[in-house]
C-alpha cells in the first residue's frame, strides 16, 4: 500500500501547489487523479516519483522494484533508435545491451512495435511514439507506473486503442498505476479508483471506486456502471470547482 500522508508542496516563490493530501493507493490498483489544469496533479506525481521533495508530510510504501514514468509528451531521444530509447533505463542502471536485448524485445512486443525497433522517433506517428514511451517505462518491470496525461495530445481513436492496450498491460503485469488525466470518461474507463483534485492549493476532494470488471471493452462503455460513475465523477468535479472558486 502506497501511502501519502499530509503531503504539501510549496515552491520557493511561495506558491502552494499542494496542501495536505492524504491518499492511500492499493497494490495493483489503477488509480486516476482527475482535476482541472493547474490543480497540482503533476506535482503530486513528481513527489511520488521522488523527483521532488514534499515540503511537508510523508510518502511511505513505495514498492520495491522501481517506478516507471510516462509524460504527456513521449520525450524520446530523437538521435536514438526506438530500441535504444527503450534501452535507456536499463543502460542507466548498467545493464549491458546483450543482457537487455530480450527485455527490450519483450517491452516492444507488448506495445506492438517489435518491427519498429530500428526506426527513429521522427519516423513514427504520435501514437506510436507514445507506445515507445510506455515500452521504455515498463522495460525495467516497475511495480509502480506513473502516467501524467499520457494520451492528452492524441486523437480519440488512437487514445481509445492505447487505453485498451494499457489495461491489458496492467492486468498482465500487475503493476500499480497512478494515472493523471483531466478526462472524466478516460478515468472511469480505466480505473479501479478515482481521486478528484481541486486547485489552489491542490487537495483531494473526493474518491470514487469504480465497480466495473477488470476486463473492459466497448460493452463496458455502454454499461450502467460506466455511465453512473461518469455521472457521479462529473458532478463531484463540478462541486469541487465550485468549492474552490
Amino acid at each position: 500500500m502506497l501511502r501519502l500522508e499530509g503531503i504539501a508542496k510549496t515552491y520557493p516563490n511561495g506558491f502552494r501547489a499542494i496542501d495536505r493530501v492524504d491518499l492511500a493507493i492499493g497494490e495493483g490498483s489503477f488509480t486516476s487523479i482527475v482535476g482541472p489544469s493547474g490543480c497540482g496533479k503533476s506535482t503530486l506525481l513528481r513527489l511520488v516519483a521522488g523527483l521532488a521533495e514534499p515540503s511537508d508530510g510523508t510518502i511511505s510504501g513505495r514498492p520495491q522494484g522501481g517506478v516507471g514514468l510516462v509524460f504527456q509528451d513521449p520525450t524520446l531521444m530523437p538521435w536514438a533508435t526506438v530500441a535504444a530509447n527503450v534501452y535507456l533505463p536499463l543502460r542507466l542502471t548498467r545493464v549491458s545491451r546483450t543482457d537487455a536485448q530480450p527485455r527490450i524485445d519483450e517491452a516492444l512486443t507488448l506495445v506492438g512495435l517489435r518491427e519498429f525497433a530500428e526506426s527513429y522517433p521522427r519516423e513514427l506517428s504520435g501514437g506510436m511514439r507514445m507506445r515507445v514511451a510506455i515500452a521504455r517505462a515498463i522495460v525495467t518491470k516497475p511495480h509502480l507506473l506513473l502516467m501524467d496525461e499520457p494520451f492528452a495530445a492524441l486523437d480519440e481513436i488512437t487514445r481509445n486503442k492505447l487505453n485498451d492496450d494499457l489495461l491489458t498491460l496492467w492486468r498482465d503485469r500487475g503493476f500499480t498505476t497512478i494515472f493523471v488525466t483531466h478526462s472524466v470518461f478516460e478515468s472511469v474507463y480505466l480505473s479501479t479508483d478515482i481521486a478528484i483534485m481541486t486547485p489552489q492549493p491542490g487537495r483531494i476532494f473526493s474518491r470514487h471506486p469504480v465497480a466495473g470488471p477488470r476486463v473492459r471493452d466497448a460493452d463496458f462503455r455502454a454499461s450502467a456502471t460506466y455511465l453512473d460513475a461518469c455521472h457521479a465523477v462529473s458532478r463531484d468535479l463540478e462541486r469541487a470547482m465550485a468549492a474552490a472558486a
Partner: protein
Amino acid sequence: MTRFLPALFGLIVLSLWELLVRELHVPKFVLPPPSLILDALVANFPSLLAALWETLKLTLAAFAVSFLGGLALAILFVQSRLIERSLLPYAVVLQVTPIVAIAPLIVIWVGVEHVERAVLILATIVAFFPILSNATFGLRSVDPGLADLFRLYRATPWQRLTLLQLPSALPALLAGARISAGLALIGTVVAEFVAGSGEATGLAWRIVESGNRLEIPRMFAALLLLSLTGLALNATIAWIERRLLRHWGAA
C-alpha cells in the same frame, strides 16, 4: 529552375563586367576583366595553391583548437555556474577586442620568427566564441522530461553528459561550428595581414605582394581562391550537419 538562378546571375554580371571593362578601357590595374583574372589564376596556380595550403592549414588548426577548447570550456560552464560566472567575462573581453589591436603584442610574445604561431593564436581567439556560446546553450537545452528520466534512474553526471547533454547540444554545436569555421578563415587571413612579413607564406601575403606590384589580376585570383575556400568550408560543415542530424526533426 530556381537553383540555377545564382549561376545565371553570376554569368550575367561576369559578362557585363568583361564587356564594360573592355568598352570603357578601364586600366587593368584598376579593374581587370574576368578573363584576365582567370589567366592570372592559371599562370600563378602552383604558387597560389601553395599559399592557400598554408592559410588553410592554419585555418583548420585554429578551428580545431576553438572547437575542442570551446566545447571543453562549455562543459565546465554547464557543470558549475561558479566557473561560468568567473570566466565568462574574460571570454567576452577576448571576443570584443579587435584582433588587429592585439596582434603586435602576440607577435612579440611568440617571437617574430614564429609568425605562424601568432596567426594561429589570433585566429583561434576569433573563432573560439561562437563554439563556446553555442555549446553552452546547447548543453543546457536538454528536454526537461528526459532530464527527469535521467534523475529517476539515478544517472551519474558522466552518463548525463555523454548520453543526454552532448547529444542534445549537437544541433547548436554544429551551428556554432559553421560560424566558427568561417571566422577561423577570416581570422587567419586578417592575422596574416597584421602579423605577417615577407616571411609569411599564406594567401594574405600574396595579396599584399600583388598589390605592391600592381599585379591586380593576381590579387583577384587570390581573392577568388579565398572565397572558394570559405564556401567549401561552409559546405563541408553543412554536409556534416545534415548527416548527423538526419534523424532529428520533431520527436
